[in-house]
């Protein structure tokens, strides 16, 4: 039996007995970032494929909430900073080694793109809208003409943004639960699934909902596969990784994880969506809301549990 004791005394707030330096702000931001990445990815891809009329909600309406989601997410990030007045230094340095550094730059590019994208559809949705200034009208005309040109970088940046929400965590070698390369793809797929859920919620077009439902089922299946893969990897890893996995396989996070994320957040909505495709009447808000809540809880659990895991020495 091994017992460790701080003989000098040590009870630093948020560090002891276990690390808890990141609170609700970070998982909320990761959720909003993933959601924004998902929505923008679908908008860009359907535009590139020339389906902006068939998939009108995904291309035109859903991206409207992205600027708000990203700005709210950035605000949460700002709230997380403990030395707030110095935040601007994020943008006076370029440090490619630091995921948080390049992530903040990706957001700096993504937020204006999302604003431009949704602004170019404002007049289509609200016909009485007037941009007032001539240069804004000229710019709008240019954007409308060059949508595909914007859609390509938007699709690529959306994938980077979605993966980044996972890499932000997986880059921390010191936290075994996060330190796995599957976390980036897992967060990307989960973010896309929440993005698809938003489109499902907003869409009134039956055909569009059917396509998005199919995409969402596929994403959920990939996500479940990634989650199995994640724990398989941990179980075959070092003792620190095994301990990390055990938090979810019998430890204190098992109940919330399997009940709210796997069952209510993935399997149940997938079954509902399959039933809907088979022709049963399912109110769309149920699977969509479950996916969104499940995605949010998933990020809270991973951020919370990851901070508990550590190297053993």
């Amino acid at each position: 039996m091994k017992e460790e004791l701080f003989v000098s005394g040590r009870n630093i707030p948020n560090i002891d007995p276990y690390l808890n330096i990141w609170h609700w702000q970070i998982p909320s931001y990761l959720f909003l970032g993933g959601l924004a990445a998902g929505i923008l990815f679908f908008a860009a891809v359907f535009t590139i494929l020339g389906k902006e009329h068939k998939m009108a909600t995904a291309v035109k309406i859903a991206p409207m909430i992205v600027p708000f989601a990203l700005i709210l997410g950035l605000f949460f990030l700002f709230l997380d900073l403990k030395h707030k007045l110095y935040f601007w230094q994020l943008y006076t340095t370029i440090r490619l080694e630091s995921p948080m550094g390049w992530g903040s730059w990706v957001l700096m590019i993504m937020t204006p793109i999302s604003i431009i994208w949704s602004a170019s559809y404002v007049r289509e949705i609200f016909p009485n809208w007037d941009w007032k200034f001539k240069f804004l009208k000229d710019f709008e005309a240019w954007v409308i003409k060059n949508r595909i040109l914007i859609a390509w970088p938007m699709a690529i940046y959306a994938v980077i943004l979605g993966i980044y929400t996972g890499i932000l965590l997986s880059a921390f070698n010191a936290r075994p639960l996060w330190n796995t390369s599957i976390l980036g793809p897992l967060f990307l797929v989960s973010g896309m699934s929440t993005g698809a859920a938003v489109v499902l919620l907003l869409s009134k077009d039956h055909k569009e909902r059917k396509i998005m439902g199919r995409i969402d089922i596929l994403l959920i299946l990939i996500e479940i596969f990634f989650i199995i893969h994640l724990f398989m990897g941990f179980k075959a890893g070092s003792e620190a990784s095994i301990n990390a996995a055990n938090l979810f396989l019998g430890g204190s996070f098992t109940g919330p994880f399997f009940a709210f994320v796997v069952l209510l957040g993935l399997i149940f909505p997938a079954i509902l969506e399959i039933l809907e495709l088979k022709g049963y009447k399912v109110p769309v808000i149920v699977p969509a809301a479950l996916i969104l809540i499940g995605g949010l809880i998933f990020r809270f659990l991973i951020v919370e549990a990851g901070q508990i895991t550590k190297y053993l020495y």
Partner: protein
Amino acid sequence: MRYAMAIDTRKCVGCSDCVVACQTENNVPVGFCRDWVIEVVDGTYPNVSIELRSERCNHCKNSPCVRCCPTGASHFEDGGIVVVDHEKCIGCGACIQSCPYNARYSHPDGYVDKCTFCIHRVRQGSDPACVSVCPTKCMYFGDLDDPNSKIINMLKNRKFKSLAPEAGTKPQIFYLL
């Protein structure tokens, strides 16, 4: 130049003088500490072994904290000492997450703080505060590139370990066994 520390776990008595000296020297706020003493008890009576370790930032060669800092506040000073520039730190907490030794904390003033090897003393040619007060003289601070330094002598003649070398951080605090 490569500063490092060797700590003799067989001479340490766990008096915590190093902790108090550090808190006084560096004006560490009440309730926080940059170094700490840990007692590891292995086995059950009567087959028990005890190891006492005075722990602090390992001033790693491959520092995850320097790598993940988005503003470059965490950086290397001469001799590989890892220091946080308070004016550049935005308090994002990334370095705290990245440290396998939990050696960093968020200072009540907002920035992140940790052991500096008492760089202000080292630059004047003295030892860090913890080393200079140790009543059993169990700590050795010095330059690994200097073949005549005491620390090289200790590492040559004694068995030693570092903490969590599997984390790949190349820690520069060595515990003599």
